[in-house]
């Protein structure tokens, strides 16, 4: 082991086990605030490894399979790089859940991958709950890279990590999540993560995508359909991608109408407090939920989110695979 600053030594492994016992990361719901904060301290330590030419060997000899059953470039790439920065071997499988269904069950696919001696499976799947299901089936680590409209925990972790980096803490921050909440796994994970860390969450967007019933599911949030009200006192606004593939046509009239009502342009960004930041999980639809002048402007932390995403995913992979007794 090369590292002095992280996890590999005997004493540090023991410290890790005291704070992190989960082999899987299937959702933010299963995490405590202490676990999230512990993961952040580990991600802090991984940031230097992001520099070109740097890398660690904490997961040398281990193999991570990216099982992506739904299209993704960004998240898959971030997981690949995270695993490689830790010294692991990575295999990525891209297919669609529907083609999998025809041939083989998810259990069989996963058992086959496991039989090849893999240490962790990172899965994206169109079915809500699929990561939990896989985690219960397998004795190796399962990392959820997005399960239907349920959770996308690493996205929420990197978002909160970015807020913490910017503001020093997440506790007490006011965060507005704007856009398609109903179909968004990013929104669900962020609501849970931000609430656990003590932020105040406001959900904003059209009533069909941000129904009042969300308040029953997440009593801690505030729901606002007026954009100015949603923006004017927040510390950060998280824009969500308007996902054509998940919406039926009845949820809003057109992309144009969405943009005219809820798109974030320079004029509306001026309603924000001076220090407020703009976040987006990507990939962004320029001209739909956000104008380029905002996405590329001084408030935008979008590329910091991407960079932090690698460090956070390194921490997730290292902690979860480390939690399995060998």
């Amino acid at each position, binding site marked *: 082991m090369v590292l002095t600053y992280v996890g590999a030594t005997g004493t540090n492994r023991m410290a890790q086990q005291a704070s992190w016992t989960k082999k899987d990361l299937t959702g933010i719901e299963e995490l405590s605030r202490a676990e999230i904060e512990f993961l952040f301290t580990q991600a802090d330590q991984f940031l230097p490894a992001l520099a070109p030419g740097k890398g660690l060997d904490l997961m040398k000899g281990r193999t991570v399979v990216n099982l992506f059953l739904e299209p993704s470039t960004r998240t898959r790439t971030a997981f690949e790089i995270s695993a490689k920065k830790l010294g692991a071997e990575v295999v990525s499988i891209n297919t669609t*859940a529907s083609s999998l269904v025809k041939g083989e069950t998810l*259990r069989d696919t996963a058992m086959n991958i496991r039989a090849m001696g893999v240490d962790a499976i990172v899965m994206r799947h169109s*079915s809500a*709950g699929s990561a*939990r*299901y896989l985690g219960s089936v397998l004795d190796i680590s399962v990392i959820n890279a997005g399960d*239907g*409209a349920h959770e996308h925990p690493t996205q929420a972790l990197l978002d909160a990590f970015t807020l913490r980096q910017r503001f020093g803490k997440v506790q007490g921050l006011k965060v507005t999540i704007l856009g398609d909440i109903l179909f968004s796994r990013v929104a669900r994970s962020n609501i849970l993560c931000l609430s656990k860390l003590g932020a105040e969450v406001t959900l904003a967007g059209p009533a069909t995508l941000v129904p009042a019933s969300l308040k029953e599911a997440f009593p801690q949030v505030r729901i606002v359909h007026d954009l100015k009200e949603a923006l004017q006192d927040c510390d950060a606004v998280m824009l969500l991608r308007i996902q054509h593939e998940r919406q039926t046509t009845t949820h809003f009239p057109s992309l144009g109408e969405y943009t005219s009502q809820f798109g974030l342009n320079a004029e509306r960004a001026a309603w924000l407090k001076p220090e407020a930041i703009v976040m987006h999980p990507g990939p962004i639809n320029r001209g739909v939920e956000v104008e380029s002048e905002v996405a590329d402007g001084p408030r935008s932390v979008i590329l910091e989110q991407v960079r932090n995403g690698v460090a956070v995913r390194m921490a997730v992979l290292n902690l979860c695979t480390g939690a399995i007794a060998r």
Partner: protein
Amino acid sequence: MNPADHSPLWIRGARVIDPSAKRDEAKGDIYALDGVIVDQLSAADQAKARIIDGTGLVVAPGFVDLNCRLGEPGRSARETVRTGTRAAAAGGFTTLVTMPDSLPAADNVGTLQLLREICSREASVRVLPTGTLTKGHEGKALAPLGSMKKAGVVAVTDTTSGVQNNEIMRRALEYAAMFDLVVLDHCQDSSMTEGAQMHEGAWSLRLGVRGWPRAAEEIVASSDCLLAELTKARIHLQHLSSGGSAEIVRRAKAKKLSVTSEVSALHLLLTDASLANYPTSLKTNPPLREEADRLALIAALIDGTIDAICSDHSPCTATEKDCEFDLAPFGAATLETAFAAAHTAVVAGGHADLVLLLARLTCGPAKVLGLAAGTLRAGAAADLVLLDPKATWKPRAQDLHSKSGNNPLIGHALTGRVQATFVGARQVHGA
């Protein structure tokens, strides 16, 4: 089916409950001869009777299930008539009304004859088939209801496909009424439930699962009541899941419309909160709803708005259910646990007494279809259950008789258990 047992039977010293005759004796006797209930046995018959000591138990009419599936023909990987009726016997059901969505569908006389032939060989309880309302339960063209009636169907239904077109439903009701056939309707506006996997509410929002609003059921429950008013035909609303639907039926009954309804035992016991960890065994159609619905359904059961408790036994294989939640088929295998589930929810739950519960399992469903079942009156078939209402138990997979792998109550603590079941005085379950 096995022939009746002609030898004399004497069940002695049990609490006798027969809701059809408003009978509840703390300690009484039930006699049967030639497979039929009799008031008394002769001294000679008493001497050679099989005597069963019912002390501490309840004897009641065998249960009548208005909504179940036995797999055959065509889905015998899920269930067969042999395993399904064996499960029914273990659950205390002696008469089963089966849904017609087999493969091929029971939309023709030939399939019904095949089913009857299988049942004559394999069934351990009485099986009364239904036919589809429209060909292939596709909701387009009427099935040959008259011929199917002659072939023995006791009702017609498009089961979970529902009938989405009001004009077809109206004509179907009129046509079925000519043959005195009750139409059983599954209430689901499918335009509102595309891709839906569970009740739409706080839990579906938390779980990120597409929701199925109550209104999708209530809209069809309403239109059914309006069409019952228009056509004067008999309509029976299947497995209500929402409190609103029960209220719609209550109003229809107050207007003296010939509308009846049922609820599945599972919906009396559980809510959508049980889906918090995506158990595919609890993915049902209709979906489990909220506590307020559960309580409203129990209230409707008690006030008579709901006439019957059904099992809604929908067997699936373990393999079919071992997958992602939204890819799993709908359905729960419930015949063996329906009584215990309903008893746990309604009686042990403190909402009503055993007599009321048994009424909704016996004479209630029998009356919906005018069946000569669900009674202990002399002359009736000796279809009986012996119950231990105090027994507490947890169903175990290895003890179940159903071929399916989707009983959701395995490991669930239940109160009330069927000890023995008799069909035509022949014992089909119990030691």
